[in-house]
Every structure is written in C-alpha cells, then in structure tokens.
C-alpha cells in the first residue's frame, strides 16, 4: 500500500491530525486530500475539511466507488458537526448502501450512525430508534461502539430515562477510552455532565425546585398526576394524555396544576389561555367550550370541577398534582435547550429541530443575543449560533482513513 497514506492514516486513527498533515500536506491526489480533510475536521476547521473531502471525492476514479463513498460519509459527518442538518440525507443513504454492498461494514455502520445522530438532533426519536435497532455494536471498533452508546444515551436522555442513559454513557466512556480519541472522551464527559444538570423544575403547592434527570424519571414513575410542560402532556404513571397540539388546553391545564389544590379564577384562566386582559362575553363562552374539551380529554385521570370563582383540578386516584416545567423561566427556553448542547447551530437547523418557522427562531435568537445569552459566528448563510463561552466543536470524527480498497 501507499506508504505515506498508510502512515498518515495511522496517525489519524491514533488521534494525531498534525502528524497526518505532516505526511500528506503537499499531496493533491484523492487519498491524500481525503486524509487532509479528516485531519482538518479533527482540528476544527470544518469549512476547509468540507472542501478537501469534496475535492477528494471528485478525485477518485470510476473504479474507486468505495473510496468515494467514504468521502461522502466523512463530508456528512463534517456537516453534522457544523449542525448543517439540511445536508443531503439521500447522498449519505446511497453511500451507506454502496459500502454495505461492497462489504465495508465498519464504514457502512458509521454512515448509519450519522443518519441516527441527525434524526436525534432534529428530534425524530422514533425513527432514530428504529434505525438503531438493526445494529449490533459488538463487532465494531471501539470508536464506533462509543458512537453507538452515545446515540443510545441521547435517545434515553430525551425519553427521560436516567438509568438507561447512565448505563449507556458508562459503556460509551469505556469504549471511548479504548479508542483513545480525546474528542470522543470529551463528548462522553459533557453528556455525563448533562445528567447532573437541572433538567426541569418541579412546581407544586406554591413552591418550586430544580430536578435532575433521575429525579424527573422518579417523579414520572410515582403516583403523582404530572402536568408536564416540557412535553405538553398530562400523565400519571403509564397513562398519558398528550396536549402537544392543543396549546390552549395545555395552558389551562398548567394554570390549574400550579394552583392545585386551590382553584383558578376565570379571569386568570382567560389571561393564561387567550392572553385576554379584559374578558368579554365571547371570551367567557370560549372558555366554557375549552374547559369542556379539557374535561373530556382528562376524564381518565382527573375531574375538572367548577368553583364559585372558576375551576379546580381534582385527580381521580393521585394524591398529588405536580407541574413539571422547563429548567429556566426563559422566554425562549426551547431555543436555549437546543443550544445547551454547546454546538453551533444554524437558525434553519434550529427551526427544523423545533418544528417552527425560521423567522420565529430568528426573533428568539435576536432577543437572546441582545441579552448576551447566545452569540453568533460567521455571516449570512454560514452564520451559526451557540451559547457562550465559545466551546470547541466536540465531535467524534471517527471515520477510518479512506485507504484505496482498504
């Protein structure tokens, strides 16, 4: 095999991008360009990395489809690191299929993990989980096993399963150490720190306190009736009534949970649900309709009783009602929640992840920037947003060097 390419690939695999660049810095042939691209990505210069990988892909000949597919996978990983979530999912899919067909199982699996991570980042958990199901990480090299466990942990975390998250992260940590890639270990560590950070607030009987993920899991498994403002649902054990697409009903449920066991005045409910300052008769009529709808939806879990002033929530079995709220009382908590991962996001990626319009994300970002809570990098279409202080791009660039045929 090509001596310098072999040497550079070994340096990259050992986490030494400078060593690799030293060996192939002046070479313009496709394998050298690919290695330079991966090295630049490991050094955090994602724009240059993308350029080099694209050039490399073009440079491989017609008999080198596998090498070209590996470049496509590497470029997809760079795009993911730059939080360019609108990247060409189809190209990645095609590259993965080719690698699978040609028996390059490790790189095919790597491509699959990129697909799963993208789904996870844009909040499509079910799809991410389905794609993950067919993958057994056991035969993969340590870096890929770490990636597998990180994705498992990511899904478990978003499903509020603290124990499963902790178990997956412990496995990820072992695999990352075995792989000896510092960026990977750092990624696992930052995920572990998230487990200790407040994940939500518990509001009940006029008091509130922050909850870590494990405490959220315990609360949801308890016998309390939980009005979950993080997910817009009302739940008691396994029973769940989703109000995700019913913002008015959820606002009413939140107000009632907060006041429990007391009641809430009609005026307060009107203000919370419709933002109505001076309620007129039509508002009152609408409130009656909405209360009726909420009553019907909550029937399996709770009564909604009319009081002299307004309404009160009365759980059927639960002894307690708790409102579970996002960790900060921020106006743009959802945007901040995504940026809390420490990565740089484009506003279009945030809009995609939040399922909202780019314009409203932009408004939220501008407001947060004015308060110094987020900062922008780059200009125009290349602009990215992140929370200060500026962290490094921690992404595990795992792709083994695209050796010809190897």
């Amino acid at each position, binding site marked *: 095999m090509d*001596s310098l390419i072999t040497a550079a690939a070994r340096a990259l695999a050992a986490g030494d991008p400078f060593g690799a660049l030293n060996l192939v810095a002046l070479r313009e042939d496709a394998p050298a360009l690919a290695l330079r691209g991966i090295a630049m990505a490991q050094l955090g210069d994602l724009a240059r990395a993308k350029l080099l990988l694209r050039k490399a892909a073009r440079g491989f000949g017609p008999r080198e489809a596998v090498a070209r597919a590996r470049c496509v996978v590497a470029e997809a990983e760079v795009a993911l690191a730059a939080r360019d979530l609108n990247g060409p999912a189809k190209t990645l899919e095609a590259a993965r299929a080719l690698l699978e067909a040609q028996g390059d199982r490790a790189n095919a699996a790597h491509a699959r993990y990129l697909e799963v991570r993208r789904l996870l980042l844009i909040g499509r958990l079910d799809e991410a989980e389905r794609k993950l199901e067919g993958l057994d990480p056991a035969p993969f090299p340590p870096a890929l096993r770490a990636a597998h466990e990180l994705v498992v942990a990511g899904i478990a975390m978003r499903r509020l399963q603290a124990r499963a998250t902790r178990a997956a992260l412990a496995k990820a940590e072992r695999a990352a150490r075995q792989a000896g890639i510092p960026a990977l270990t750092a990624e696992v560590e930052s995920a572990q720190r998230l487990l200790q950070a407040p994940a939500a607030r518990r509001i009940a009987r006029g008091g509130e306190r922050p909850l870590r993920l494990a405490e959220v899991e315990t609360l949801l498994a308890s016998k309390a009736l939980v009005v979950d403002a993080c997910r817009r649902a009302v739940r008691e054990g396994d029973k769940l009534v989703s109000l995700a697409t019913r913002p008015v009903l959820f606002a009413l449920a939140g107000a009632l949970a907060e006041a429990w066991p007391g009641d809430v005045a009609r005026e307060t409910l009107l203000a919370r649900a419709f933002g109505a300052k001076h309620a007129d008769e039509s508002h009152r009529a609408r409130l009656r309709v909405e209360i009726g709808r909420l009553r019907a939806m909550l029937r399996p879990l709770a009564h909604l009783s009319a009081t002299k002033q307004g309404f009160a929530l009365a759980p059927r079995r639960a002894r307690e009602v708790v409102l579970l709220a996002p960790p900060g009382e921020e106006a743009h908590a959802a945007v901040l929640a995504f940026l809390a991962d420490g990565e740089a996001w484009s506003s279009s990626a945030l809009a995609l992840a939040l399922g909202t319009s780019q314009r409203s994300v932009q408004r939220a970002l501008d407001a947060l920037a004015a308060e110094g809570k987020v900062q922008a990098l780059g200009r125009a279409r290349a602009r990215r947003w992140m929370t200060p202080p500026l962290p490094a791009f921690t992404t595990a660039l795992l792709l083994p060097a695209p050796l*010809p*045929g190897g």
Partner: protein
Amino acid sequence: MKRSAAEIIREYGPFPGIEAVHGLTFDGRQVWFASGDRINALDPASGRLARSIEVKAYAGTAFDGTHLYQIAEKRIQKIDPKTGRVLHTIPAPGDSNSGLAWAEGSLWVGQYRDRKIVQVDPETGKVLRTIDSNRFVTGVTWVEGELWHGTWEGDESGLRHIDPKSGEVLEQLDLPPGTMVSGIEADGGDRFYCGGGKSGKVRAVRRPTRGGAKAGGTEAGSAGRK
C-alpha cells in the same frame, strides 16, 4: 495480452494483532511481510509466524540475499534481518511509494497512484529509470527476467506481467473481485506470494511457468537468495 483467473493455492492469516499486510518478500525460506509497526517472518510450510522485527513498515518489502529493505513514510530502510537493526536509509523516490523489489543490484519501487515503477540505486536513492504502467501499482517483483506488478484499483486487482521497456501488459492474472493485493513476490518456483492489504492475509498464487521452464529461477529476483 494473455488474461486468466489467478489460482490461489493457499491463504495465510489473518493473524492476531495484525491489521493489514502492506508489503512482502521471500528470503528463500520465509515470507517476510510488513504490518505497520513491524516486519513478520512467516513460514509458508507451517503457516506459523516465526519472529518479527520492530520497525516502521508501511509499504513494500524486499530482500537482496542478505538484507531486508522496507519502505516507511518517505524513506527506504535497509535492515539486518538477524539483528533487526536499521543499517542504512535512503530517500524513497516519490510520493505514493507502495511496492518494493530487489533485482540486478537495484531497488524497484512501485508507485501506487503515479502508476509507475522506478529503479533506484540502493546506496544513494538516485533514480535510474522509470517504467510506466497504466494501472495503479502496488507490489513489484522480478522473476526469471520477467517484471510483474500487483494492481489494485477499487474493486479490481490482479497480477500483471509487463514489458520493462515499453510498459506493455503481456499477461494478467485476475484475482477474485474484492481481493486486495498489496505486496507481491515470486518465490523463484511456481508461486507468487501476495499481501492482502486490510484483509490481513497473505496468499500464495500459482505462477504460470513457461513451456519447459523448470522451477527455481536463475535470474534476478531469486538468484541472490539461495
């Protein structure tokens, strides 16, 4: 050009702890193959690894009858196989050096993407001659006056016998699709040894013998080894 399917006589490995076979050579008794951090001696009769020499070994390997030559990064190391010591180092001729052979007092260096075979002076590294091929060149070997090189381009790989003057392909043995070939070396008899790249294997492939030609070469590539 004569073209036929290569007949694989035997496969060795993959061996524990060895990720890839880069270059290889034959010293008349053992096959020495490069695997990144070391050169390993394989007994082709038993298939066992006898010993190894710790040295950077990223591409071609050759034997001149006494010494081993090994490409690492941008240089060629001359190694005493008895002690494992690096005795001498010369610069390797190009950027994409892959294969290495010894014949007629020269080293022959295969250059993968440059599709060339370069003859160099083993003392100084001076380039004496360049032969062009039209395929990517991996291993190189001389046997009975014939120049053979391995080729491996994406999915296609094989062993090619070329005219050292014109570069014309005289004969080609196709390996099964997906079989990688890194180093190649003739044993002077009826077989080539081939490095299997990332498969971690060494393969013995039958060498077509000329009508009436007896096994055991008399020319460069095997003569110096006995």
